């Protein structure tokens, strides 16, 4: 199984740590090379985030570090089978989309409350064929999560990681944490802390994770 680096360097001197983007590296990967490669990829997302801040008149508080995952790094999708709120099991390995966001959250996490609707807006302007969003509740009782979402109109599944097993396997150390996977389900980016998804276009995400350089996935059938 590939391993993530959770406590990575590469913070680009950002004043607001809660909005930092950190990269996700294979544990055996050459960090320096990854950093170098990441910085070029980082430009798009970071600049988008800053643009949005400028538009709303906010102070510069969101610029973040971003490190790309070396190509070929994989997550253990085989253990990612989680029930949704209706009791239907979801298997990450069967998820088909050009970009897959796996978003770990908790109802007690304040930034998560604002980020979930932003993810919904992202998927609405992206189209279901291009983007799949899986949000994963970490360590909370079903009823609490169900009530939390009762008033939200969300089109993506809310999955229940009741025992935190997936979060532990993916080395999630703070909430929210989001992984951006390509259509091969390779993790390419990691966002630790909340992120301004409203400032991102799917095309930019796709470009950043190198989607357009990847040959089409052979799904069989």
């Amino acid at each position, binding site marked *: 199984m590939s391993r993530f680096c959770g*406590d990575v360097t590469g*913070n680009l*001197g*950002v004043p607001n*740590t*809660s909005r930092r983007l950190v990269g996700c590296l294979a544990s055996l990967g050459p960090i320096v090379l990854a950093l170098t490669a990441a910085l070029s990829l980082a430009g798009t997302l970071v600049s988008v985030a800053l643009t949005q801040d400028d538009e709303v008149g906010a102070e510069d508080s969101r610029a973040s570090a971003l490190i790309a995952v070396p190509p070929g790094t994989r997550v253990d999708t085989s253990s990612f089978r989680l029930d949704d709120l209706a009791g239907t099991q979801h298997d990450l390995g069967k998820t088909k989309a050009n970009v897959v966001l796996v978003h770990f959250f*908790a*109802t*007690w996490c*304040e930034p998560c409350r604002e980020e979930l609707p932003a993810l919904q807006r992202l998927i609405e302007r992206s189209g279901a064929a291009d983007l799949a969003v899986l949000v994963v509740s970490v*360590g909370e*009782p*079903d*009823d*609490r999560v169900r*009530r939390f979402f009762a008033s939200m109109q969300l089109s993506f599944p809310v999955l229940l990681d*009741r*025992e*935190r097993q997936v979060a532990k396997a993916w080395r999630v*150390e*703070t*909430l929210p944490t989001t992984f951006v996977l390509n259509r091969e389900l390779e993790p390419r980016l990691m966002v*630790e*802390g909340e992120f301004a998804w409203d400032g991102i276009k799917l095309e930019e995400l796709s470009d950043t994770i190198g989607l357009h350089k990847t040959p089409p996935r052979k799904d069989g059938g």
Partner: protein
Amino acid sequence: MKMNRRDALHAGLFASLAAVLPRNAAAQSSFAPRPDNWRSFEITTRLDLEKAQSAAQAWIPLPAVNEPEWTRPLGNSWSTNARTAVVERDSKYGAQMLHLEWEPAADPPMAEVTSRFSTRDRAVDLSKFGNAAPLSEVERKLYTEPTALIPTDGIVRRTADMITANATSELAKAKVIYEWIVENTFRNARTRGCGVGDIAAMLRAGNLGGKCADLNALYVGLARAVGLPARDVYGVRVAPSKFGYKSLGTASPAVTKAQHCRAEVYIAGMGWVPVDPADVRKVVLEEPPGNLSLTDPKVVAARKTLFGAWETNWLAYNMAHDVRLPGSSGPAVEFLMYPQAEIAGSRLDSLDPEHFKYVITASEVTPT
């Protein structure tokens, strides 16, 4: 040691904390719990679950902390229409709970559990070391080890090491961690319940807001990370503060949402020292008129007192973490401070008593 930006922030705040305490402010208020008279209380938890076609079960915490110096459980009684009602005991920490089970399609499940206990205030003389019994190796291991949400390595250890870098004694370390919590955290009114106490996440996110289960767990984790035995004590407030702190007591016999957890740190020679930095932050936020400064006399008095003393207008249930609920296939609870229940194997939201539902009331029953 490598120091990142957040570490530097922590260190800077730590360095500045000594500068904000006015020298004579503590004398402006009297918040002085003393271990004098014992008081007795009765607490009743009334549980009413919705009628369901599936089996239901519930777990109601019972007082299980028995410390001759300050708290004694006096027994439990209950009435219920459950098929079974059994007192269960957590094998690791000794937490106790009443485990109730109902048949499918039974009448709406109900239970009413009443517990009595006696308690008196605590105050440890921090100016001298006594002859408190040393901890056994088993106890020392139990109260220095990590829990699911309280790791003692990584960012917790790094933070603790920075905070205590200049502290040379156990007591100095315990105190400087306490002051650091008071200085650097805040009570967040939006936090549900008492929080969850995911302290590594708090530190990594740089968001040190929360409530007692967050802030006092942070104290416990930082203390354990530098080798100090420490433990959370989970309970519920049962009476007003006799020292006039509205924020640190109940306003009525209804205590359904009055859960509160505290912390203890073990100092050789002194024994378990009560601390409660989360309540200092509660005074800051909630004591009228609200949003007090750290130099407000009420805050200064609370800050001075709550390292070494507790007013025990409060019931201590247990000191348990990661509690498996007997008969449940669901996840362990981070701590057992709220009633828990499941219908058809689905865990109810213990932080939502109106829908759950449960009501907790308390009254003093001290003989006159």
